[in-house]
Protein backbone atom coordinates (compact mmCIF):
# COMPACT_ATOMS: atom_id res chain seq x y z
CA UNK A 1 0.00 0.00 0.00
CA UNK A 2 1.74 3.11 -1.12
CA UNK A 3 0.80 6.66 -0.37
CA UNK A 4 2.22 8.26 -3.51
CA UNK A 5 -1.23 8.90 -4.94
CA UNK A 6 -2.25 10.87 -1.87
CA UNK A 7 -3.53 14.35 -2.83
CA UNK A 8 -0.63 16.76 -2.72
CA UNK A 9 -0.93 19.75 -0.42
CA UNK A 10 -0.10 22.80 -2.57
CA UNK A 11 -1.52 26.27 -3.14
CA UNK A 12 -2.95 26.92 -6.60
CA UNK A 13 -1.41 29.66 -8.78
CA UNK A 14 -4.87 31.25 -9.14
CA UNK A 15 -5.11 31.62 -5.38
CA UNK A 16 -1.59 33.10 -5.24
CA UNK A 17 -2.46 35.58 -8.00
CA UNK A 18 -5.50 36.77 -6.02
CA UNK A 19 -3.35 37.19 -2.92
CA UNK A 20 -0.81 39.21 -4.92
CA UNK A 21 -3.47 41.49 -6.45
CA UNK A 22 -5.04 42.14 -3.03
CA UNK A 23 -1.61 42.88 -1.58
CA UNK A 24 -0.77 45.40 -4.33
CA UNK A 25 -4.19 47.07 -4.10
CA UNK A 26 -4.01 47.30 -0.30
CA UNK A 27 -0.52 48.81 -0.39
CA UNK A 28 -1.64 51.32 -3.02
CA UNK A 29 -4.68 52.29 -0.95
CA UNK A 30 -2.52 52.75 2.15
CA UNK A 31 0.03 54.77 0.19
CA UNK A 32 -2.68 57.13 -1.17
CA UNK A 33 -4.23 57.41 2.30
CA UNK A 34 -0.96 58.35 4.02
CA UNK A 35 0.01 60.73 1.23
CA UNK A 36 -3.35 62.54 1.53
CA UNK A 37 -3.08 62.68 5.33
CA UNK A 38 0.48 64.10 5.19
CA UNK A 39 -0.49 66.66 2.51
CA UNK A 40 -3.74 67.37 4.37
CA UNK A 41 -5.65 67.11 1.10
CA UNK A 42 -9.10 65.44 0.82
CA UNK A 43 -9.31 64.00 4.38
CA UNK A 44 -12.60 62.17 3.52
CA UNK A 45 -11.11 59.90 0.86
CA UNK A 46 -7.88 59.43 2.81
CA UNK A 47 -9.81 57.74 5.65
CA UNK A 48 -11.68 55.68 3.09
CA UNK A 49 -8.44 54.57 1.47
CA UNK A 50 -7.03 53.80 4.92
CA UNK A 51 -10.04 51.61 5.71
CA UNK A 52 -9.86 49.82 2.35
CA UNK A 53 -6.10 49.28 2.76
CA UNK A 54 -6.38 47.77 6.25
CA UNK A 55 -9.35 45.65 5.22
CA UNK A 56 -7.34 44.33 2.27
CA UNK A 57 -4.38 43.47 4.52
CA UNK A 58 -6.65 41.72 7.02
CA UNK A 59 -8.21 39.69 4.20
CA UNK A 60 -4.74 38.85 2.96
CA UNK A 61 -3.68 37.66 6.40
CA UNK A 62 -6.73 35.43 6.60
CA UNK A 63 -6.11 33.99 3.13
CA UNK A 64 -2.48 33.28 3.96
CA UNK A 65 -3.49 31.56 7.19
CA UNK A 66 -5.83 29.36 5.18
CA UNK A 67 -2.99 28.18 2.95
CA UNK A 68 -0.94 26.98 5.94
CA UNK A 69 -1.05 23.20 6.37
CA UNK A 70 -3.16 22.53 9.44
CA UNK A 71 -1.70 20.15 12.02
CA UNK A 72 -3.65 16.88 12.11
CA UNK A 73 -5.51 15.97 15.26
CA UNK A 74 -4.13 12.98 17.19
CA UNK A 75 -5.45 10.06 15.18
CA UNK A 76 -7.56 8.04 17.58
CA UNK A 77 -7.56 8.27 21.32
CA UNK A 78 -7.00 4.99 23.10
CA UNK A 79 -9.64 4.56 25.80
CA UNK A 80 -8.77 3.26 29.25
CA UNK A 81 -10.01 -0.30 29.63
CA UNK A 82 -10.44 -1.75 33.09
CA UNK A 83 -10.29 -5.38 34.20
CA UNK A 84 -12.00 -6.50 37.40
CA UNK A 85 -10.85 -9.68 39.13
CA UNK A 86 -12.99 -11.27 41.81
CA UNK A 87 -12.48 -14.06 44.29
CA UNK A 88 -15.53 -16.37 44.25
CA UNK A 89 -14.88 -17.39 47.87
CA UNK A 90 -14.19 -14.18 49.82
CA UNK A 91 -15.51 -11.61 47.26
CA UNK A 92 -12.16 -9.82 47.25
CA UNK A 93 -12.04 -7.46 44.26
CA UNK A 94 -9.02 -6.29 42.33
CA UNK A 95 -9.41 -3.60 39.69
CA UNK A 96 -6.55 -2.94 37.28
CA UNK A 97 -5.82 -1.83 33.71
CA UNK A 98 -6.52 -4.34 30.95
CA UNK A 99 -3.60 -6.54 29.94
CA UNK A 100 -3.30 -8.49 26.71
CA UNK A 101 -4.56 -12.03 27.32
CA UNK A 102 -7.32 -10.96 29.74
CA UNK A 103 -10.82 -12.16 28.97
CA UNK A 104 -14.08 -12.31 30.90
CA UNK A 105 -14.38 -15.52 32.99
CA UNK A 106 -10.66 -16.25 32.71
CA UNK A 107 -9.21 -17.82 35.81
CA UNK A 108 -6.18 -15.90 36.96
CA UNK A 109 -3.78 -16.11 39.88
CA UNK A 110 -4.60 -16.87 43.52
CA UNK A 111 -6.53 -14.45 45.75
CA UNK A 112 -4.35 -12.29 47.99
CA UNK A 113 -6.62 -13.00 50.96
CA UNK A 114 -7.74 -16.64 50.77
CA UNK A 115 -5.56 -18.19 48.04
CA UNK A 116 -8.61 -19.24 45.99
CA UNK A 117 -8.27 -18.86 42.21
CA UNK A 118 -9.56 -15.47 41.11
CA UNK A 119 -11.68 -14.92 38.03
CA UNK A 120 -11.98 -11.96 35.68
CA UNK A 121 -15.59 -10.84 36.04
CA UNK A 122 -15.60 -7.62 34.06
CA UNK A 123 -13.73 -5.84 31.30
CA UNK A 124 -15.05 -2.48 30.19
CA UNK A 125 -14.02 0.99 29.23
CA UNK A 126 -15.00 4.03 31.19
CA UNK A 127 -16.77 6.41 28.81
CA UNK A 128 -15.63 10.01 28.85
CA UNK A 129 -18.12 12.61 30.10
CA UNK A 130 -18.66 14.12 26.62
CA UNK A 131 -19.57 10.67 25.28
CA UNK A 132 -22.59 10.32 27.61
Amino acid sequence: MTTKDEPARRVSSFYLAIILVIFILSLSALYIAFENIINQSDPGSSYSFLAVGFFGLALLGYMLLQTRPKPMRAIVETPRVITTLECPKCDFKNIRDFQRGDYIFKETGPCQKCDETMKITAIYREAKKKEQ
Partner: protein
Amino acid sequence: MITEVAGLLTGGGDIVSVIIQFAISAIFVLFLFYGQRFQTRIMLREVESHLRRLNLIRDDGRKMAIETIKEIGKPKGNPAERVDQFLEYIAITPQSMDPSGIVWKLEHVLDVRDVRFKDEVKLMAPEADETQLNNLENTLEAAMALNMIYKVIRHFYLLGKKTNSLYVIMQIQMVLPIIMKQAEAYAHALRAFASGQPIGDGAGALVAAKLMQGYETKEIAKDVVAATVPIDGRTAYVLKAKGPGGNVGKPGDGIRKIIEEKKGNISTIIMIDAALKLEGEAPGEVAEGVGAAIGGPGVEQFKIEDAIVKHKIPVNAIIVKEDLGDAVSPMRKEVFDAVDPVIKRIKRLLLERTKKGDNVIIAGIGNTIGIGQ
Protein backbone atom coordinates in the same frame (compact mmCIF):
# COMPACT_ATOMS: atom_id res chain seq x y z
CA MET B 1 -15.25 57.81 9.25
CA ILE B 2 -18.35 55.60 9.47
CA THR B 3 -20.29 58.03 7.35
CA GLU B 4 -17.45 58.03 4.83
CA VAL B 5 -17.52 54.22 4.52
CA ALA B 6 -21.31 54.28 4.31
CA GLY B 7 -20.99 56.87 1.55
CA LEU B 8 -18.64 54.58 -0.34
CA LEU B 9 -21.10 51.70 -0.31
CA THR B 10 -24.18 53.73 -1.19
CA GLY B 11 -22.42 55.51 -4.00
CA GLY B 12 -20.51 58.70 -3.47
CA GLY B 13 -19.13 60.57 -6.43
CA ASP B 14 -15.41 60.19 -5.69
CA ILE B 15 -12.97 57.73 -7.24
CA VAL B 16 -12.89 55.39 -4.19
CA SER B 17 -16.64 54.94 -4.35
CA VAL B 18 -16.40 54.13 -8.02
CA ILE B 19 -13.70 51.52 -7.33
CA ILE B 20 -15.70 49.92 -4.52
CA GLN B 21 -18.88 49.85 -6.60
CA PHE B 22 -16.99 48.36 -9.49
CA ALA B 23 -15.50 45.72 -7.17
CA ILE B 24 -18.94 44.79 -5.80
CA SER B 25 -20.38 44.55 -9.32
CA ALA B 26 -17.40 42.46 -10.42
CA ILE B 27 -17.86 40.08 -7.47
CA PHE B 28 -21.58 39.79 -8.29
CA VAL B 29 -20.89 38.92 -11.93
CA LEU B 30 -18.08 36.55 -10.90
CA PHE B 31 -20.35 34.66 -8.54
CA LEU B 32 -23.12 34.63 -11.12
CA PHE B 33 -20.97 32.65 -13.55
CA TYR B 34 -18.41 30.96 -11.31
CA GLY B 35 -20.34 30.56 -8.03
CA GLN B 36 -20.77 26.82 -8.47
CA ARG B 37 -17.09 26.45 -9.25
CA PHE B 38 -16.15 28.30 -6.05
CA GLN B 39 -18.52 26.06 -4.10
CA THR B 40 -16.98 22.97 -5.71
CA ARG B 41 -13.51 24.18 -4.74
CA ILE B 42 -14.57 24.78 -1.14
CA MET B 43 -16.14 21.30 -0.97
CA LEU B 44 -13.11 19.71 -2.57
CA ARG B 45 -10.88 21.35 0.03
CA GLU B 46 -13.11 20.00 2.81
CA VAL B 47 -13.11 16.48 1.37
CA GLU B 48 -9.34 16.72 0.87
CA SER B 49 -8.72 17.52 4.51
CA HIS B 50 -10.91 14.58 5.59
CA LEU B 51 -9.19 12.37 3.05
CA ARG B 52 -5.81 13.20 4.59
CA ARG B 53 -7.14 12.27 8.01
CA LEU B 54 -8.60 9.04 6.63
CA ASN B 55 -5.22 8.24 5.10
CA LEU B 56 -3.58 8.73 8.49
CA ILE B 57 -6.15 6.50 10.18
CA ARG B 58 -5.72 3.83 7.52
CA ASP B 59 -1.92 3.89 7.68
CA ASP B 60 -2.05 3.77 11.45
CA GLY B 61 -4.37 0.75 11.28
CA ARG B 62 -2.13 -1.04 8.81
CA LYS B 63 0.92 -0.34 10.97
CA MET B 64 -0.83 -1.61 14.07
CA ALA B 65 -1.96 -4.79 12.29
CA ILE B 66 1.59 -5.50 11.10
CA GLU B 67 3.06 -4.82 14.55
CA THR B 68 0.51 -7.10 16.22
CA ILE B 69 1.23 -9.89 13.74
CA LYS B 70 4.96 -9.51 14.39
CA GLU B 71 4.45 -9.47 18.16
CA ILE B 72 2.03 -12.39 18.42
CA GLY B 73 2.71 -14.49 15.36
CA LYS B 74 6.53 -14.24 15.31
CA PRO B 75 6.77 -14.57 11.52
CA LYS B 76 10.17 -15.32 9.98
CA GLY B 77 10.02 -12.54 7.40
CA ASN B 78 8.31 -9.16 7.17
CA PRO B 79 4.53 -9.69 6.90
CA ALA B 80 3.93 -6.18 5.41
CA GLU B 81 3.62 -7.33 1.81
CA ARG B 82 1.20 -10.13 2.72
CA VAL B 83 -0.84 -7.72 4.86
CA ASP B 84 -1.06 -5.30 1.93
CA GLN B 85 -2.33 -8.10 -0.30
CA PHE B 86 -4.84 -9.07 2.38
CA LEU B 87 -6.17 -5.51 2.63
CA GLU B 88 -7.09 -5.62 -1.06
CA TYR B 89 -8.92 -8.94 -0.75
CA ILE B 90 -12.35 -9.10 -2.38
CA ALA B 91 -15.33 -11.44 -2.05
CA ILE B 92 -17.78 -11.45 -4.93
CA THR B 93 -21.37 -11.96 -3.86
CA PRO B 94 -23.49 -14.43 -5.86
CA GLN B 95 -25.70 -13.41 -8.73
CA SER B 96 -29.21 -12.55 -7.54
CA MET B 97 -31.17 -12.46 -10.82
CA ASP B 98 -32.73 -15.77 -9.81
CA PRO B 99 -32.87 -15.41 -6.01
CA SER B 100 -33.83 -19.04 -5.36
CA GLY B 101 -31.08 -20.68 -3.29
CA ILE B 102 -29.03 -17.49 -3.01
CA VAL B 103 -28.66 -17.88 0.78
CA TRP B 104 -26.72 -21.12 0.42
CA LYS B 105 -24.61 -19.67 -2.36
CA LEU B 106 -23.81 -16.66 -0.18
CA GLU B 107 -23.07 -18.91 2.77
CA HIS B 108 -20.66 -20.90 0.62
CA VAL B 109 -18.85 -17.73 -0.52
CA LEU B 110 -18.63 -16.53 3.10
CA ASP B 111 -17.33 -19.93 4.25
CA VAL B 112 -14.66 -19.97 1.53
CA ARG B 113 -13.71 -16.42 2.47
CA ASP B 114 -13.49 -17.36 6.14
CA VAL B 115 -11.29 -20.40 5.46
CA ARG B 116 -9.08 -18.37 3.14
CA PHE B 117 -8.72 -15.60 5.74
CA LYS B 118 -7.83 -18.06 8.48
CA ASP B 119 -5.23 -19.76 6.25
CA GLU B 120 -3.72 -16.39 5.32
CA VAL B 121 -3.51 -15.34 8.96
CA LYS B 122 -1.95 -18.69 9.89
CA LEU B 123 0.73 -18.12 7.27
CA MET B 124 1.34 -14.59 8.50
CA ALA B 125 1.41 -15.55 12.19
CA PRO B 126 2.64 -19.13 12.52
CA GLU B 127 3.13 -18.93 16.31
CA ALA B 128 -0.37 -17.66 17.13
CA ASP B 129 -2.83 -19.95 18.93
CA GLU B 130 -6.50 -20.32 17.91
CA THR B 131 -7.73 -17.39 20.01
CA GLN B 132 -4.98 -15.12 18.74
CA LEU B 133 -5.62 -16.19 15.15
CA ASN B 134 -9.26 -15.19 15.47
CA ASN B 135 -8.26 -11.86 17.01
CA LEU B 136 -5.70 -11.22 14.26
CA GLU B 137 -8.27 -12.07 11.60
CA ASN B 138 -10.65 -9.51 13.13
CA THR B 139 -7.82 -6.96 13.34
CA LEU B 140 -7.04 -7.40 9.65
CA GLU B 141 -10.72 -7.16 8.75
CA ALA B 142 -10.93 -3.81 10.56
CA ALA B 143 -7.80 -2.63 8.69
CA MET B 144 -9.45 -3.81 5.49
CA ALA B 145 -12.58 -1.78 6.23
CA LEU B 146 -10.46 1.34 6.85
CA ASN B 147 -8.62 0.77 3.58
CA MET B 148 -11.90 0.44 1.71
CA ILE B 149 -13.38 3.60 3.26
CA TYR B 150 -10.26 5.57 2.30
CA LYS B 151 -10.31 4.29 -1.24
CA VAL B 152 -13.99 5.02 -1.81
CA ILE B 153 -13.64 8.59 -0.55
CA ARG B 154 -10.50 9.06 -2.63
CA HIS B 155 -12.39 7.76 -5.68
CA PHE B 156 -15.15 10.36 -5.31
CA TYR B 157 -12.64 13.10 -4.51
CA LEU B 158 -10.58 12.43 -7.63
CA LEU B 159 -13.70 11.97 -9.75
CA GLY B 160 -15.06 15.30 -8.49
CA LYS B 161 -11.75 16.96 -9.23
CA LYS B 162 -11.54 15.42 -12.68
CA THR B 163 -15.08 16.29 -13.72
CA ASN B 164 -15.22 19.54 -11.75
CA SER B 165 -18.79 18.54 -10.98
CA LEU B 166 -20.46 19.97 -7.92
CA TYR B 167 -22.90 17.06 -7.80
CA VAL B 168 -20.24 14.35 -7.74
CA ILE B 169 -18.36 15.99 -4.90
CA MET B 170 -21.56 17.00 -3.09
CA GLN B 171 -22.60 13.34 -2.77
CA ILE B 172 -19.55 12.51 -0.73
CA GLN B 173 -19.33 15.81 1.13
CA MET B 174 -22.84 15.35 2.53
CA VAL B 175 -22.15 11.91 4.02
CA LEU B 176 -18.60 12.68 5.15
CA PRO B 177 -19.42 13.27 8.85
CA ILE B 178 -21.05 9.82 9.07
CA ILE B 179 -18.21 8.18 7.16
CA MET B 180 -15.61 9.80 9.42
CA LYS B 181 -17.50 8.48 12.43
CA GLN B 182 -17.48 5.00 10.91
CA ALA B 183 -13.77 5.22 10.19
CA GLU B 184 -13.05 6.25 13.77
CA ALA B 185 -15.21 3.37 15.00
CA TYR B 186 -13.19 0.90 12.91
CA ALA B 187 -9.96 2.43 14.19
CA HIS B 188 -11.17 1.78 17.75
CA ALA B 189 -12.25 -1.72 16.74
CA LEU B 190 -8.82 -2.43 15.34
CA ARG B 191 -7.20 -1.56 18.67
CA ALA B 192 -9.73 -3.65 20.59
CA PHE B 193 -9.22 -6.66 18.28
CA ALA B 194 -5.44 -6.36 18.40
CA SER B 195 -5.44 -6.58 22.18
CA GLY B 196 -8.39 -8.99 22.51
CA GLN B 197 -10.72 -6.66 24.42
CA PRO B 198 -14.47 -7.38 24.55
CA ILE B 199 -16.44 -5.06 22.27
CA GLY B 200 -19.94 -3.64 22.53
CA ASP B 201 -21.25 -6.11 19.95
CA GLY B 202 -20.47 -8.88 22.44
CA ALA B 203 -23.32 -7.88 24.79
CA GLY B 204 -25.42 -10.90 23.73
CA ALA B 205 -22.48 -13.29 23.99
CA LEU B 206 -21.72 -11.94 27.47
CA VAL B 207 -25.29 -12.59 28.64
CA ALA B 208 -25.09 -16.19 27.38
CA ALA B 209 -21.63 -16.64 28.92
CA LYS B 210 -22.93 -15.45 32.28
CA LEU B 211 -25.89 -17.83 32.10
CA MET B 212 -23.73 -20.84 31.21
CA GLN B 213 -21.16 -20.21 33.96
CA GLY B 214 -20.54 -23.40 35.95
CA TYR B 215 -22.17 -25.67 33.36
CA GLU B 216 -20.43 -27.93 30.91
CA THR B 217 -20.23 -26.59 27.38
CA LYS B 218 -19.84 -28.42 24.09
CA GLU B 219 -19.32 -27.28 20.52
CA ILE B 220 -22.59 -27.95 18.70
CA ALA B 221 -21.88 -26.16 15.43
CA LYS B 222 -18.94 -24.42 13.82
CA ASP B 223 -17.56 -22.04 16.46
CA VAL B 224 -20.74 -22.27 18.55
CA VAL B 225 -20.81 -23.64 22.09
CA ALA B 226 -23.89 -24.61 24.09
CA ALA B 227 -24.67 -25.56 27.67
CA THR B 228 -27.77 -27.07 29.23
CA VAL B 229 -28.83 -24.78 32.07
CA PRO B 230 -31.82 -25.30 34.37
CA ILE B 231 -33.66 -21.99 34.93
CA ASP B 232 -36.75 -21.90 37.16
CA GLY B 233 -37.75 -25.45 36.28
CA ARG B 234 -37.21 -25.03 32.54
CA THR B 235 -34.36 -26.55 30.56
CA ALA B 236 -32.54 -23.80 28.75
CA TYR B 237 -30.10 -24.55 25.94
CA VAL B 238 -27.83 -21.56 26.12
CA LEU B 239 -25.56 -20.94 23.16
CA LYS B 240 -22.99 -18.42 22.06
CA ALA B 241 -19.99 -18.12 19.76
CA LYS B 242 -16.88 -19.91 20.98
CA GLY B 243 -14.65 -17.48 22.86
CA PRO B 244 -12.50 -15.80 23.86
CA GLY B 245 -11.17 -15.23 20.34
CA GLY B 246 -12.91 -12.82 17.96
CA ASN B 247 -15.72 -14.93 16.58
CA VAL B 248 -19.41 -14.73 15.75
CA GLY B 249 -19.80 -18.43 14.93
CA LYS B 250 -22.82 -19.89 13.17
CA PRO B 251 -25.66 -19.54 15.67
CA GLY B 252 -28.17 -20.43 12.95
CA ASP B 253 -26.69 -23.91 12.68
CA GLY B 254 -26.57 -24.21 16.48
CA ILE B 255 -30.24 -23.29 16.93
CA ARG B 256 -31.30 -25.56 14.08
CA LYS B 257 -29.35 -28.47 15.53
CA ILE B 258 -30.97 -28.11 18.97
CA ILE B 259 -34.44 -27.86 17.39
CA GLU B 260 -33.78 -31.02 15.36
CA GLU B 261 -32.36 -32.88 18.37
CA LYS B 262 -35.46 -31.98 20.42
CA LYS B 263 -37.71 -32.80 17.41
CA GLY B 264 -39.17 -29.33 17.52
CA ASN B 265 -40.10 -29.60 21.19
CA ILE B 266 -38.94 -26.09 22.03
CA SER B 267 -41.39 -23.73 23.73
CA THR B 268 -39.62 -20.53 22.90
CA ILE B 269 -36.38 -19.04 21.66
CA ILE B 270 -34.90 -15.94 23.21
CA MET B 271 -32.24 -14.14 21.21
CA ILE B 272 -30.08 -11.45 22.73
CA ASP B 273 -28.04 -9.09 20.58
CA ALA B 274 -26.59 -5.61 20.48
CA ALA B 275 -28.55 -3.25 18.23
CA LEU B 276 -27.89 0.19 16.85
CA LYS B 277 -29.51 2.91 18.89
CA LEU B 278 -31.05 6.08 17.55
CA GLU B 279 -29.58 9.43 18.52
CA GLY B 280 -31.06 10.49 21.83
CA GLU B 281 -31.39 6.95 23.18
CA ALA B 282 -29.08 6.00 26.00
CA PRO B 283 -26.33 3.45 25.38
CA GLY B 284 -27.00 0.21 27.22
CA GLU B 285 -30.78 0.70 27.08
CA VAL B 286 -32.59 -2.65 26.90
CA ALA B 287 -35.62 -3.29 24.73
CA GLU B 288 -37.51 -6.43 23.83
CA GLY B 289 -39.76 -7.65 21.07
CA VAL B 290 -40.16 -10.54 18.68
CA GLY B 291 -38.14 -11.85 15.75
CA ALA B 292 -34.66 -13.16 15.16
CA ALA B 293 -32.28 -10.65 16.70
CA ILE B 294 -29.19 -11.16 14.59
CA GLY B 295 -27.28 -8.98 12.15
CA GLY B 296 -24.69 -9.81 9.54
CA PRO B 297 -25.26 -10.71 5.89
CA GLY B 298 -28.57 -12.46 6.68
CA VAL B 299 -27.57 -16.09 6.21
CA GLU B 300 -27.84 -17.01 9.90
CA GLN B 301 -31.11 -15.10 10.31
CA PHE B 302 -32.53 -16.98 7.33
CA LYS B 303 -31.49 -20.34 8.80
CA ILE B 304 -33.07 -19.52 12.17
CA GLU B 305 -36.31 -18.31 10.62
CA ASP B 306 -36.41 -21.35 8.35
CA ALA B 307 -35.97 -23.71 11.32
CA ILE B 308 -38.54 -22.07 13.59
CA VAL B 309 -41.27 -21.69 11.01
CA LYS B 310 -41.43 -25.47 10.48
CA HIS B 311 -42.28 -26.02 14.15
CA LYS B 312 -44.04 -22.69 14.77
CA ILE B 313 -41.67 -21.81 17.60
CA PRO B 314 -42.10 -18.28 18.96
CA VAL B 315 -38.95 -16.14 18.87
CA ASN B 316 -38.39 -13.36 21.38
CA ALA B 317 -35.71 -10.74 20.99
CA ILE B 318 -33.91 -8.71 23.63
CA ILE B 319 -31.61 -5.99 22.40
CA VAL B 320 -29.00 -3.82 24.06
CA LYS B 321 -28.83 -0.45 22.36
CA GLU B 322 -25.57 1.21 21.38
CA ASP B 323 -24.20 3.23 18.48
CA LEU B 324 -21.86 1.91 15.80
CA GLY B 325 -18.82 3.34 17.57
CA ASP B 326 -19.73 1.54 20.80
CA ALA B 327 -20.56 -1.69 18.98
CA VAL B 328 -17.02 -2.10 17.67
CA SER B 329 -15.09 -0.30 20.43
CA PRO B 330 -14.09 -1.82 23.77
CA MET B 331 -17.31 -2.54 25.67
CA ARG B 332 -18.40 0.54 27.57
CA LYS B 333 -19.55 0.29 31.17
CA GLU B 334 -23.20 1.06 30.40
CA VAL B 335 -23.35 -1.87 27.98
CA PHE B 336 -21.59 -4.17 30.45
CA ASP B 337 -24.01 -3.10 33.18
CA ALA B 338 -26.96 -3.93 30.91
CA VAL B 339 -26.18 -7.66 31.21
CA ASP B 340 -27.94 -8.17 34.56
CA PRO B 341 -31.15 -6.36 33.51
CA VAL B 342 -31.17 -8.54 30.37
CA ILE B 343 -30.90 -11.71 32.47
CA LYS B 344 -33.79 -10.46 34.61
CA ARG B 345 -35.88 -9.96 31.48
CA ILE B 346 -35.01 -13.44 30.22
CA LYS B 347 -36.19 -14.94 33.51
CA ARG B 348 -39.37 -12.89 33.42
CA LEU B 349 -40.04 -13.93 29.83
CA LEU B 350 -39.54 -17.58 30.75
CA LEU B 351 -42.00 -17.27 33.63
CA GLU B 352 -44.58 -15.49 31.48
CA ARG B 353 -44.23 -17.35 28.18
CA THR B 354 -43.33 -20.91 29.21
CA LYS B 355 -44.24 -23.44 31.87
CA LYS B 356 -42.20 -25.72 34.09
CA GLY B 357 -40.54 -28.62 32.27
CA ASP B 358 -40.41 -26.75 28.93
CA ASN B 359 -37.33 -26.65 26.71
CA VAL B 360 -36.14 -23.24 25.66
CA ILE B 361 -33.24 -21.90 23.62
CA ILE B 362 -31.35 -18.81 24.74
CA ALA B 363 -28.96 -17.52 22.08
CA GLY B 364 -26.41 -14.82 22.85
CA ILE B 365 -25.52 -13.30 19.50
CA GLY B 366 -22.47 -11.21 18.67
CA ASN B 367 -18.71 -11.18 18.54
CA THR B 368 -17.36 -12.97 21.57
CA ILE B 369 -13.90 -11.43 21.53
CA GLY B 370 -12.55 -11.17 25.09
CA ILE B 371 -15.42 -13.23 26.49
CA GLY B 372 -14.87 -16.81 27.60
CA GLN B 373 -17.52 -19.37 28.57
